């Protein structure tokens, strides 16, 4: 479990993380989403004690990172997979981290095997492809068999097979009761991996909930009618929210499709089309973070 309480980080007059309060629960994969520059990495760095909060706290299973006697056995992390000395072998890269936490060298072999790098264990990390580097980063995160995992953009640079592998790994780890927090700036990726979503923008919490809540929030009833002006007013009088969609259709929110149909029948309005539109997570995400995107293209 990761608990953030009023976590804030300022660099000069720029606020990277703004009063973030959040509970990341065990047993599920939590996706940490936000546009570039939203404060995801800074938040993760504060959880791991790399950046020091301006105010507020971050605890892992009730303790701050610097209070953990053997941090790797409580929280495994991968913030930047390239953070390995290019001349050091993969094995030594993992061995030194294991030694800091009194983790036996046999565990290094285990995690190398787990991520499929056994054959290249003696090769310098600088000679690795992006996918192999990413796997090495994952191996380091798993060294201490930790109950909590924090991974920044874990699927970056992986080939499709690698992406499938890591999704299965994350889900498996969560199913074992671990807390898994993974960040991404791609909603579609999260939709495939995460059970819960936390969306931040400009350092602030924008939305939080189950994946399903996000798709439901984005869905609408699409209506096409020759009397769209009249019907829109009728819908609004009945308490629905109406906005114009493409091809002269009306997008209705706040009312079930069945009730829209009943209203049309009762008022004698001709309908050409009545259907439920599920917005993709991507659209919901764009909608949620539009105002919070740090660098938006001109619209």
């Amino acid at each position, binding site marked *: 479990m990761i608990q953030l309480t009023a976590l804030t980080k300022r660099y000069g007059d720029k606020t990277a993380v703004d009063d973030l309060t959040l509970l990341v629960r065990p047993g599920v994969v939590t996706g940490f989403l936000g546009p570039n520059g939203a404060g995801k990495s800074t938040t993760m760095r504060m959880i791991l*004690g790399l950046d020091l909060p301006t105010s507020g706290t971050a605890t892992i299973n009730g303790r701050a990172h610097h209070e*953990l006697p053997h941090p790797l056995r409580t929280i495994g992390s991968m913030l930047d997979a390239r953070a390995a000395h290019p001349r050091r072998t993969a094995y030594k890269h993992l061995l030194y981290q294991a*030694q800091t936490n009194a983790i036996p060298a046999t565990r290094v072999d285990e995690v190398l095997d787990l991520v499929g790098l056994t054959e290249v264990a003696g090769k310098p990390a600088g000679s690795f492809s992006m996918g192999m580097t990413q796997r090495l980063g994952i191996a380091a995160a798993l060294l201490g068999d930790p109950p909590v995992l924090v991974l920044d953009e874990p699927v970056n640079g992986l080939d499709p097979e690698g992406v499938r592998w890591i999704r299965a790994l994350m889900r498996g780890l969560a199913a074992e009761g671990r807390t898994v927090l993974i960040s991404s700036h791609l909603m579609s990726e999260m939709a495939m991996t995460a059970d819960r979503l936390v969306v931040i923008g400009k350092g602030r919490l924008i939305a939080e909930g189950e994946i399903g809540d996000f798709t439901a929030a984005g869905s609408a009833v699409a209506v096409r009618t020759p009397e769209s002006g009249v019907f829109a007013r009728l819908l609004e009088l009945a308490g629905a929210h109406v906005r114009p969609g493409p091809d002269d259709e009306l997008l209705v929110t706040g009312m079930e499709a069945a009730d829209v149909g009943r209203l049309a029948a009762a008022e004698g309005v001709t309908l050409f089309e009545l259907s439920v539109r599920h917005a993709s997570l991507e659209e919901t995400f764009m909608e949620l973070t539009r105002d919070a995107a740090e660098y938006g293209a001109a619209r």
Partner: protein
Amino acid sequence: MIATGVLKAEWTKFSSIRATMVLSLAVVAASGFFGWTFANMAAHEYATASAQERLDFLPLDQVMRGMLLVQLLISALGVLVATSEYGSGTLGPSLAAVGRRSRLVIAKAGMTALVALPVSVAGIGLMFVTSQVTLAAQGAPYLMPGDPDALLALLLGPVVFTLLALFGLALGLLLRGTAAAVNVSSTFLLMPVLAPIFPDFLSRLLTTYWPNGAGFRAVTSRSDLPPVLSFGLLVGFVAVMHIAAFTRFARRDA
């Protein structure tokens, strides 16, 4: 308290990249080489010296001057213990693994001392042997290791070198880049070497009180100050540098 696991990890880091291992060997090799060259020069001077000059000949002072050059390498060794992490971005993973920052700094200081000391013992020992053998071979006066002056150099010299490696480590932690830290360290350490070009009072000040100058003076027992005070000056200076480096390291975003 040094956590032994963290110390072991520091050794793994140190010994698994080439630069640090090569630099350690370079300290020893350069020491031997400078002992030989400076002794050749000294022996040549001795051969052409007057009777009075021959009486004043000091078989240790001139030939151990190589220490003033080798000190740059040993300090760079300390620098690398810190900056190889900054350079490759491994400080993040290292801190995430170790947790409390003081543990990492203490382990780095401990590992630096444990490596620099034997390397310095080997380097200065080799410098002594090559220089005295060269002097003897060319008929100049030489010292045996049991001579009090020789003993002082052989025992205290490595301690001074180790302190300079720790000085390098502190600079590496403060400046976070190999180039910057090595430049600052080299400039700082060469000040006493440049002393002769400065006006007299400044020159005296530099050789007597400048931390590494004081340290070397203590080794050669040529100081205006009692050796304990000269040596203490260096120890105190390195301690202050470490307090500064640690205070900064503990409060800075990694």
